[in-house]
């Protein structure tokens, strides 16, 4: 799984490089983001703009990361393409995650 990262103020921005998040990637998605959380990054914003497709196993991996973050800090997602937003809405996970359009909005949401 290709993930680029950068620090902006107190936030770690993770930029996924995959077109599809499916069952063949779900485990490494979960493991790699979990590493960043365990490394004590308290604000994480994940950029999904390259992602055109998310299946339920990868959605589950993201939920698992959100739970791992728990009260340690905050996690937001931004740059979601239309089919990805639909997936979050269909499964009602749009009520659970903080979904932002742009990096700016994601940073604002985390630092609020």
């Amino acid at each position: 799984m290709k993930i680029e990262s950068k620090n902006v103020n107190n936030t770690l921005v993770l930029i996924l490089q995959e077109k599809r998040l499916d069952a063949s990637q779900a485990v490494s998605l979960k493991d790699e983001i979990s590493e960043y959380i365990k490394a004590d990054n308290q604000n994480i914003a994940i950029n999904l703009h390259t992602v055109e497709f998310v299946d339920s196993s990868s959605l589950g991996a993201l939920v698992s990361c959100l739970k791992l973050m728990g009260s340690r800090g905050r996690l937001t997602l931004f740059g979601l393409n239309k089919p990805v937003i639909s997936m979050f809405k269909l499964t009602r996970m749009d009520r659970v995650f903080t979904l932002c359009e742009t990096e700016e909005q994601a940073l604002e949401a985390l630092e609020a």
Partner: protein
Amino acid sequence: MNYTNLIISSRFENTRLAALCATEVASRSFNSEALNEIELSIVELVNNCIEHAYEESVNQQVSIEFKLFKDHLIIEVTDNGKALDPSILDNMNGSFDFDPDDLDNLPEGGFGLNIIKASMDEVKYERLNDKNHWLLTKFC
């Protein structure tokens, strides 16, 4: 009617072959929102065959047939793996019930069949001659 049949080996990385064929076949009759629903359903279904019916044993086969009619698409998925308890499917109601504020108890799985039910117009399952047959129908 336009007929297409894809047979893949039971590995998660091959699910995207089914996704590609589904969207290419369906693109002739469905809008982009419906295409997303079809792609998602086929991926969830084939993932389930690999994960549950074949319990992730590789080099088994999953067959995916596409029949595109004037006003609807039928997708038939067949595997030789373990049977499904049909009550599981019957008890899925296509909705997603959980408390969004109860972080610790958020579901990390169990979405697949509900997604398929919510995305397709008809979902049928049959066990025939030691095979699992899934019949998905979507109207244009």
